[in-house]
């Protein structure tokens, strides 16, 4: 294990650990409004100050991290499974099946996903709790984010389909379904694994984009996207550096994921 990869894993574990400990580290919670201390600078009471309506920024960063780090992997898992099903099967079956599946994938890839998300979000029922809105946001990301991975998996499964051991297994009379589930899919694991890890930072950033547009997680629940909204407008790093903490955290976590991933990619290439 390289030093940087070790550091990256340590950082991710630390961030996860701290966010899990949010109820103990920030007992007042993320929603309470200290209206007499709105937009306050860091103090003993509020380590990272308060936001524009007086909510404790430290608590919001911790809970926002929890949400982003918990649900981005869940969305990544969903999208990877979909990609495995569509891409893996298409690659394995080949021919017209592969062409049809890839046409659908291309269609999905060509869709302006941001506008699609905005449209789907607008069609959702209004009276959903913030927690449901969080789940729906990440569910949408998962359901729409499988396409790139599907293309990779289709190519990988296509190469396995013509491999010697699959031909031999087919010649031995193993049924196609069993062949796919028992012999092909397990051999796609490194690719699936890599795709899963690649998707996590992508979904974290996607949620952040939606949050900045005000279309992500509903108030008062925090997410990295909604926390980054504070940086729109004229915010000076010199005057209010504490406002940049969510941005720094996002960059650190995404970079850490990339460092961890580089190893996965090496394994897949090998």
């Amino acid at each position, binding site marked *: 294990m390289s030093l940087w990869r070790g550091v990256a894993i340590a950082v991710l574990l630390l961030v996860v650990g701290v966010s899990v400990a949010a109820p103990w580290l920030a007992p007042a919670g993320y929603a309470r409004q200290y*209206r007499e201390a709105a937009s306050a600078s860091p103090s003993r009471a509020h380590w990272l100050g308060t936001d*524009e309506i007086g909510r404790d920024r430290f608590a919001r960063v911790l809970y926002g991290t929890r949400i982003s780090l918990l649900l981005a992997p869940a969305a990544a898992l969903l999208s990877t499974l979909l990609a495995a099903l569509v891409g893996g099967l298409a690659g394995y079956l080949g021919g017209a099946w592969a062409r049809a599946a890839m046409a659908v994938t291309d269609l999905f890839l060509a869709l302006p996903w941001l506008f699609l998300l905005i449209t789907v979000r607008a069609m959702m029922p*209004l*009276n959903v709790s913030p927690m449901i809105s969080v789940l729906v946001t990440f569910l949408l990301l998962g359901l729409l984010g499988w396409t790139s991975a599907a293309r990779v998996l289709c190519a990988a499964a296509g190469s396995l389909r013509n491999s010697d051991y699959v031909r031999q297994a087919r010649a031995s009379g193993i049924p196609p379904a069993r062949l796919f589930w028992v012999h092909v899919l397990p051999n796609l694991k490194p690719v699936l694994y890599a795709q899963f890890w690649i998707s996590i930072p992508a979904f974290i950033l996607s949620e952040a984009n939606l949050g900045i*547009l*005000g279309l992500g997680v*509903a*108030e008062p629940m925090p997410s990295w996207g909604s926390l980054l909204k504070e940086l*729109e407008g*004229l915010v000076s790093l010199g005057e209010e550096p504490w406002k940049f903490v969510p941005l720094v955290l996002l960059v650190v976590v995404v970079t850490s994921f990339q460092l961890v991933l580089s190893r996965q990619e090496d394994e897949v290439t090998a």
Partner: protein
Amino acid sequence: MKYAKAIVVLLLCWLFVPGLAGAQGGGELHFCLRSEPKTFDPMKVEDDASMAIRYLTGGVLARMNRQTQALEPELALSWEVSKEGKQITFKLRSGVSFSDGTPFSAEDVAYTVQQLMDPALHSPTGDAFRSGPGNVETKIISPTQISITFPAPVAGLDRQFDQVAILSAHSAKKEMAVLGPFMVADYKPGATVVLKRNPNYWKTDAQGRKLPYLGSIQLDIQPNRDVEMLRFKRGEIDLINSLDSEYFDKLAATSPQLVHDAGASLDSEQMWFNQVAKAPLAQYKKNWFRSAAFRRAISEAINRNDLSRVVFLGHAQPAVGPVSPANKFWFNARLKAETYSPDAAVKALQSEGFRLEKGVLKDRDGNEVVFSIITNAGNKYRERMATMIQEDLGKIGMHVNVVTLDFPSLIERMTQTFDYEAILLGLTNVGLDPNEQMNVWLSSSENHQWNPQEKTPETAWEAEIDRLMRAQASSGDARKRKEAFDRVQEIVFEQTPFIYLVNRNALSAVAASVEGANPVILAPQTYWNVERLTVKR
């Protein structure tokens, strides 16, 4: 030698007499338009940028003084409105020419009115004059006198002419021949509009000097407010109209002498509940929303002082009703903003059969009071207000979900599907006259937001508002109109179809290089007296 001395004396006078250098030497005012002007034709103006250019270039018969809110003569020396409010007779100024030298006469006023009321042109400015079916008649009594008769009474008829820039009936330059202080000299789409002083402008100051003092105005098209603010800080532009409260405070921290808070503006922020009978909502929710007591209780449970202080950093005032206190004549001074009182709100709700069970408010049938408030995504002030209201109403046991939607989706729910429970939006008022709110208050109107296009008024109080609004619109008597509209404001306060939240303050910034600026609450806040501004770099 004698001449040389005289020249020196004149030069010294030019240099040292205050204001004279600016007056004669011109000076260029520089500020930003926040969007591309859609037209230079004053009849077709709808957007803010085109309105700004119309204000700077258009000559009008009468102009409302933005400071005193009184109507003052401009191209008309005097006027007389008939008793029933259908006819107005103007006595015009003589010896006035358009910017291209074409003389101004009653023919130009007649031509302008024809254009204004031309159904084929459908001038948005003309909407205020379309009070009934039939044609408008213009009668030129003499080159300096004209009488205009409308088919039905037009409320506040003389004041409506503040927006009507007079066109030339004879100039080959069409709408580019103007009577205002400036004329369009150059336009680079997406970049700048340059206005030059109108050499034929008729007005002079008390000392007999020709107005305007400025030689030109450069308007940069700049939609990004951050960039506008940075350019102001760098001294590249001289004015910012309607500043954001956060930017106002940032600027005030470093240069307090440059920022101006003129107090409550005409703009309001408000929320309302869906009262549409066919809306796809549960019947028990429709019952809540149609109950005036429920709406009043919510109004009482919202801390408007906190909204003003926290969200707008103190640059807003708790709103009273449909008319801002800034509207000196039409505001009903007997009304006061709703006092924040969650206890009174709970008591009022209990008297309507609601009950608090373990901190959760339930109606008489046991339904938990849960509803959503929609606002437009990207408007940080409304998002913050909605979140604060969510907490305020949480204190009386209500569960509120805040939903931010992109604007088209919000409008579709508001006007097409009626699939919403409550909406929080703002209203930008530009006019003072209650007639400008006619489309909101008439129950048959599309913009009667809480229940649009009612075939007949669905409640007695809406019927009463209809009657009062029509009565004030058809009366030429200002006192009677005021009485009627005061009563409308009282009914709105009692019934609370809109829960008025705050009136934002009119914030602006003016560079130290600009002399003569006196920012006010009415648009255009900083350059309403543009003729008398000077810029010294």
